């Protein structure tokens, strides 16, 4: 049995808007194993992106604990959490969120700027990451010169380059056509199956969710159903 990588224990998250308290997650507990590929599904406002943000260390829970690789991340300060994200998490967004002024290679290099690696070592790792996503020949292209699928693959390379334990993907195919989406999902699946990366993906798309090993459905801040697939 695989080791539990992420453990969420009775986490709640609420926001205060004016005098109104909006509860987004309600005492949610969840364990995610090392090497899992989990699809989080649910209607808009169900709390799946909030849950993803908490797991990725972008936000802190209002209550409960989050443990990743044995380390409590819900108690980390802002600076420590940033450091933890840099070492442990790669992020993939729906709209790629590449810096338009940088080339593909420079975008991929961004997480490595926070390390002490030499310039040549950074270049080597960027080259490897771009090769993994099949874009080694697009290194000098700016995002505006890439197709949507290529831009998303650059974003995946950026998420991979620092060799994080966990990849967090928020609607990674939401802006892509079916064929390109399948290519990107296939790539994510390869990263999970062949490179052992743990992936958590938020998606509305049932076909995208089929690429995952497990699916979790959420509604109104609660997990309502879990399913495993081959």
């Amino acid at each position, binding site marked *: 049995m695989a080791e539990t990588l992420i453990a969420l224990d009775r986490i709640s998250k609420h926001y205060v808007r004016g005098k109104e308290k909006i509860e987004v997650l309600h005492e949610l507990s969840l364990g995610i194993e090392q090497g899992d590929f989990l699809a989080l599904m649910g209607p808009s406002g169900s709390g799946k992106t909030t849950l993803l943000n908490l797991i990725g260390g972008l*936000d802190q829970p209002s209550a409960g604990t989050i443990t990743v690789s044995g380390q409590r991340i819900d108690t980390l300060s802002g600076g420590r959490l940033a450091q933890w994200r840099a070492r442990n998490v790669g992020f993939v967004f729906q709209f790629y969120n590449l810096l338009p002024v*940088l080339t593909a290679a*420079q975008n991929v290099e961004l997480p490595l700027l926070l390390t002490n690696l030499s310039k040549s070592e950074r270049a080597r790792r960027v080259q490897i990451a771009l090769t993994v996503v099949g874009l080694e020949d697009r290194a000098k292209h700016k995002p505006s010169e890439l197709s949507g699928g290529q831009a998303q693959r650059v974003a995946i390379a950026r998420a991979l380059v620092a060799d994080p334990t966990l990849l967090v993907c928020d609607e990674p195919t939401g802006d892509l056509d079916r064929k390109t989406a399948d290519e990107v999902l296939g790539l994510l699946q390869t990263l999970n199956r062949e490179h052992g990366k743990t992936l958590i993906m938020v998606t509305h798309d049932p076909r995208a969710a089929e690429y995952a090993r497990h699916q979790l459905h959420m509604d109104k801040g609660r997990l309502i159903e879990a399913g495993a697939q081959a």
Partner: protein
Amino acid sequence: MKFFPLLWATLWRRKPRTIFTMLSIVVAFLLFGLLQAVNVAFSQGVEMSGADRLITHGKYSFTEILPYGHYQQIRSVPGVDKVSHATWFGGRYQSEANFFPIMPIDQDTYYDVYPEFVVADDQVAAFKRERTSCIVGRGLMEKFGWKIGDTIPIQATIWPKKGGSNAWEFQLVGVMDARDETMKGQENFMVFRWDYFDEARAFGQGTVGWYNVKVANPADAETVGRSIDKLFANSPKETLTETDKAFNAAFLKQFGDIQFLIASIIGASFFSLIIITGNTMMQSVRERVPELAVLKTIGFRDGGVLALVLAESALLCLIAAVIGVLLSTFASGFLKPFLPGLEVNANVWMLALGAALGLALLVGAIPSLRAMRLNIVNALSGH
């Protein structure tokens, strides 16, 4: 250095905006460099003033003329080593634009009191021999293409000749150089003989503008000055004796408070610059909110994001400031013949770079704080 490509690319995110903002900074620093160079030119004389020299002039104004009779009395004051005198002549060469200081002086003592100006011995001898002779600074000689032996016509603005003519003529017998390279440009004035001036002028015979007093011991300068003034207390022509430096500074105030004027102009241009550049930086950060959020997402700390925005502001201001001051350096080279001593020196460069960094901090402070405080979740979701 590893962040430089990111900074550089971000700086040129909107090329036209960056170029126009840079141009406004370049112009401000061109002005800054030139005005500081003017300041250098005006203050050089003050800075170079001799510590062992005093100037004795009219108590109520240095434009007040003094009797020549004071000369011997001042010489007799204990502690006085040498005494000379000079008078402000005014005057123009050919046109109003060709203004330079012209002074009738005592040909026998002037260069003893002002050893920082060097004239060849044979030329000094000719000056002492020829009553209508004059000596000019080398810069003036080169500027106007004069040669030894030329007759230089000067149009008087204060002192007409007997008979009412303002046309004076002097034979050029010598050229003055500054002994020290750092004083170059200070020699650009004309001197002619006071005895000829006193004889030929329409009025004011037997008077001089001020006395130049060299003291035997610089430490006694203050005591000697007080003794001189005491000598003429309660006389119709009371005196005020002050150091060469104080006199030169007061003399420059004739032209207005140069430093105040310069500070005012620079202040006004920098004020508008802060608004223009500050607005550019604010806009730049506002439209990059999602990108800054991505940087924070992948692990850039709050302080790191703050430093990136401040560094971008510093890069923008420093590049433009260096271009501006370089342009002012070239421009001051062209303008030097018109204003001797005009120089963009190391101090001006240091001031400019300091001002550029100060400007960068001012205009970058608010946008960088905003970037630092950015909430990742809100920024990524477009709130």
